[in-house]
Every structure is written in structure tokens, then in C-alpha cells.
């Protein structure tokens, strides 16, 4: 029988679905019988999902202009070589 410690060790791979079927089945058996590990798996899954749903940061226009100006200088310098 898997212990909670065993379950935690494999939690990341379990959530990433990168385990083979045999180990996966054993982990699923464990969480169906262990409410604490079920909660940990569920809240960890939601933690990952919530971060994945974050929008990229908009680059402020002044920073974007500075970047483009620096690139243009670089490109011009490359051309004159």
C-alpha cells in the first residue's frame, strides 16, 4: 500500500500525466482512500491551472519604444559593417 509520502513524491508527475499506467493506478487507488491526499492533489492542480491562466504582462509603450529604438540602432550598425 502506498503511503502519503510516496504519493507526494510522485504528485508532480501524476499531475503532469507523465507516469506509466501501473503507477498511476496505484496513486489513484491511494487518493480515492485518502481524503487529505485528494485535497492536496486537487489544490495543487488548481494552483498550477491558475498560474497557467495568467496573461502575459503588457509591455508599456515607452519601454516598447526604447526596445525598438535600440533594435533599430543595432540593425543599422550591422548593416554598415
Amino acid at each position, binding site marked *: 500500500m502506498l503511503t502519503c*509520502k510516496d504519493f*507526494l*513524491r510522485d*504528485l*508532480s*508527475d501524476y*499531475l503532469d500525466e507523465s507516469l506509466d499506467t501501473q503507477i498511476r493506478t496505484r496513486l489513484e487507488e491511494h487518493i480515492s482512500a485518502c*481524503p*487529505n491526499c485528494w*485535497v*492536496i492533489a*486537487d*489544490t*495543487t492542480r*488548481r*494552483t*498550477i491551472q*491558475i*498560474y*497557467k*491562466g*495568467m*496573461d*502575459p*504582462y*503588457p*509591455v508599456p509603450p515607452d*519601454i*516598447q519604444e*526604447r*526596445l*525598438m529604438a*535600440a*533594435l*533599430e540602432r*543595432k*540593425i543599422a550598425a*550591422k*548593416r554598415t559593417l
Partner: protein
Amino acid sequence: MAVSSQATTDESTLVAQAREGDAVAFGELVHRYEGRIFRLAQHITQNREDAEDVLQETFLKAYEHLDQFQGNSKFYTWIVRIAVNQSLMKLRRRKADKSVSLDETIDTGEDTIVREIAAWGEDPEQRYSREELGGLLDTAIQGLEPPYRSVFVLRDIEDLSTEDTADALGLSIPAVKSRLLRARLQLREKLTRQFKRKGDDAFAYM
């Protein structure tokens, strides 16, 4: 630099055009990824000014070394690697006197600590505004040590594979995996304190 109607052009075509000196094509690549690079740099450096520098340095370096891009990885993965290196340099410089290093041996033992065991209430997305939620998520990430933070940002925010993350950070695959697990559990812990269902608390299920 004008960004023309290349918004739907395939990435490898844009890279090929940029390598031949097409500045507009390179501009489109910048436009595609600047937001993600800016976010990554802010997360790793935890400093707005440094992130602005990293953004600029990343694309300047990418342009300069475009001929070294092999094309066997995605362009995005390649620039992420540049951005990570630039960010870590900033972090090290800023914290030079505090000896922050990504290479330091950290405890990757089995002590994956779980203290808060409580189910979350309603979806946090419903309970908080986007700004509030973004603030909570950023604060939680700030609380992670840089070795964990960098791995989490690349794997779970930027969606890089374990292999690409290991490559970008110069770590082994087991090291990426163990740091990712610790990072995820630490964030889960922090977020659970915010999002747990009212009246629900540790050991409620025991």
C-alpha cells in the same frame, strides 16, 4: 520598425527572413514574445527596472546572435534561455552581498512540507478581480527562493518542457523535477491560505 501583416506567418519563416536581414520579420518576432519575456524577467528578477533591461538585452542579443540559432529548438525556447541568463545575472548582481545563487546546493530531500490541508472554496477567478488575483499570485511567487521560482516560472507559467527547463537553467532533469514539486507545494500552501473554504481547516478530513 514597422510590424506589417505578418501576424499569422509561421515562426520558422519569420526566423529565416530575419536571418537574411529582414528587420520587419524580426520586429514581428519581438512583438510576439515581448510580453512573455517581460513577465518571465519580472518574475525571476523581482525588479521592474531589471526586467526592462532584460527585455531589451534579450532581443538585442537574439538579433546579434541570430546566425547561431540552430533551428532545432523553437525560437521561443532559444530566447527564453537568453532571457533567463540575463535575469540571473541581474539577480546575482543585485544580491551579490546576499550570496543568492541558482547553483547552490539546496535541500531536495523528501521533506515536501504540507501544512495546510483544506479544500478551496468557490473559484478564485470568481471571487477576485483580475488585478487582485494577479497581485495575490505575484506575491506568492515572490515568496519562493530563486532556485524554485525559476523552475516554476519556466515549467508552469512559460510552459517549457522539463528538458527545455533543465537546459535553460543548466540543471539535471531530476533537479528540475524535485524543485518543481517543492515550488508547486509551496505555492499551493500559500494560495490555500487565501482560497480555502470558510470554516474549512487543516485536518478537517482526518
